């Protein structure tokens, strides 16, 4: 028997905000019957982008129902920008934790929320763009990479617990291990400063960073309806804010790490790390 917290049990037995929301203008649907769980999240967003009402319909186990219930309670009253910062860990924490094998239920909650926000903004979610790694559950490499980074996953088993990838036939386990290895290398390269590091004052850094943004980063982001603003530079940590379409993009972290950070390291200082101001 699963070791569910009292709060999970309570939200499962008496779920909040179940049902259809006819006035919903932001709807996110994730999961499928085949996968064994699915969530339809319906939000009503007012002119100020405040979520004034939220309802859900869920097919799934106790923790899937409890995660959905918790999610609707958490986002009500928030602006879309605030809601976009809700992570799967936040959902699990709200419930006092989930059994590790059930973390994918909280991930489903976050995915539905992202889908609903994207639906409101009329954006196509980029997750589908990745390469499908796990055929059984249709999980892409982007989703796996994101889970590895966000939840600091270290084993294939943990990836399965969080994303379901690898939980079926098991043929993708080698590929999942590769993704873990690649991400571990990236983390290492972030920590070990290269010998060639120059010493720079913060003002010098800011000037060069703005330069790179204006010359290369902004033109690229603007093509997708997005933008970026430099908020602060603290040592080697560059704090930025993604704007426009990028602000709500589910892939924004990948954009920051794989694109913005890479550019800054190449052209400014190879020890810089880029973080979102909302993180």
């Amino acid at each position, binding site marked *: 028997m699963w070791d569910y917290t009292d709060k999970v*049990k309570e939200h499962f037995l008496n779920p909040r905000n179940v049902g259809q929301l006819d006035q919903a203008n932001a709807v996110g649907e994730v999961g499928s019957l085949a996968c*064994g769980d699915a969530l339809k999240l319906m939000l009503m967003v007012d002119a100020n982008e405040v979520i004034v009402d939220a309802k859900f*319909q869920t097919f799934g*186990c106790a923790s*899937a129902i409890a995660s959905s219930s918790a999610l609707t309670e958490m986002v009500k009253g928030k602006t879309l920008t605030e809601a976009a910062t809700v992570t799967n860990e936040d959902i699990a924490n709200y419930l006092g934790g989930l059994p590790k094998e059930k973390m994918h239920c909280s991930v489903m909650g976050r995915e539905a929320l992202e889908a609903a926000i994207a639906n409101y903004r009329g954006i196509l979610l980029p997750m589908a763009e990745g390469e499908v790694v796990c055929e*059984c559950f249709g999980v892409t490499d982007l989703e796996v990479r994101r889970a590895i980074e966000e939840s600091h996953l270290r084993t294939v088993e943990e990836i399965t617990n969080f994303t379901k990838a690898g939980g079926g036939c098991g043929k993708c386990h080698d590929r999942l291990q590769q993704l873990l290895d690649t991400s571990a290398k990236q983390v290492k390269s972030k920590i070990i400063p290269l010998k060639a590091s120059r010493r720079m004052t913060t003002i010098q850094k800011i000037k060069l960073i703005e330069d790179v943004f204006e010359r290369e980063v902004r033109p690229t982001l603007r093509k997708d309806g997005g933008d970026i603003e430099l908020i602060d530079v603290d040592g080697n940590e560059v704090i930025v804010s993604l704007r426009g379409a990028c602000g709500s993009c589910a892939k924004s972290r990948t954009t920051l790490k794989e694109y913005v950070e890479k550019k800054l390291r190449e052209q400014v200082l190879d020890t810089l790390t880029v973080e979102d101001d909302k993180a």
Partner: protein
Amino acid sequence: MNSTIYLDNNATTRVAPEVVEVMQPYFSELYGNPSSMHTFGGQVGEALVAARAKIAHLLGADPDELIFTSCGTESDSTAILSAIRANPDKRHIITTRVEHPAVKNLAENMHAFTGHKYRVTQLSVDSQGMLDLDEYEKAFCEDTALVSVMWANNETGVIFPVEEMAMIAKARGVLFHTDAVQAVGKIPIDLKKTAINFLSLSGHKLHAPKGIGVLYVRKGTSFSPFLVGGHQERGRRGGTENTASIVALGKACELAATRMTVENTRVKCLRDTLEKGLLAAIPNAFRNGHPEHRLPNTTNISFEYVEGEAILLHLNTVGICASSGSACTSGSLEPSHVMRAMGVPFTAAHGSIRFSLSVYNTEEEVDFVVQQLPPIIAKLRQMSPFWHNRPKSL
């Protein structure tokens, strides 16, 4: 919580009070080792002889054909690996897609235990969970070492024609093993009349305690032990005998022999009442498994568009114990291999619930379940996006 209504007897059973009573002395005054030369130990040995005779009687076997083990899984592993060792040059095994993991996982991983790669033919089942004997006959190869087919399926209760299948294997000179863990005590078995070489049983499925199993090995079948050690079980299974549990199993088999009729009349009737009641009260629900060829105590019902774990936890809050073939209950992410082998659609596989009864269940309990479950299913369906989008033409 209300008092417990236990409808999960294919998982494990209540130890019969009569069984608890007879095993008690072996934890206190009768603690001797049956192998000892003194009368104090010897009297325990005598009790084991009596227990062995009772078990043999239930199975239609000779007492010498029984080996005590620690569980059904040990019996399965012992039988399969012994058969493989008896045929060192053969590299093919026939089994089914719906075996218990104790057989399935061993057959699929023979390489790890023998150092040789084995080809495994897993016979398919139809939508009612039944085997196709033509497919079975065609599956034999020159180098088939063993057939291992369960007598009755743990999830659906479907009974396989193992007596007939064993005859077919014998005609081809192939050893035949059956995992009869779910069948023993529920349906009549007479091994003398069959060609079965190995049969596994587990005590805790028939009101004996956990931790005791039996492997039947037909006289004349070559055998090599799994646990090598002392001379216990005539050198076929080392390790000091689990005396209290062996005595308990003897009593449980004696009880089972006397209750076989009750099992197939009163228990079967309760099962049918439960099944009919639920199917009548709940739309979009159907039985999994053949209506006739199945154990008298088991019903497996799918409730479309809802998930099994959620159903079980709601049942749990009103004191009803059952189990599910849904992915979420097992910790795996896919629905049960039995439901998938039967081709149960995903709309229903995740919502399959198994109720397995015993002689201890009552009519009141069954009525209570029939009354409690419909609103639970309705509540979960109200919550399910698929229920609202289901094809309405059904």
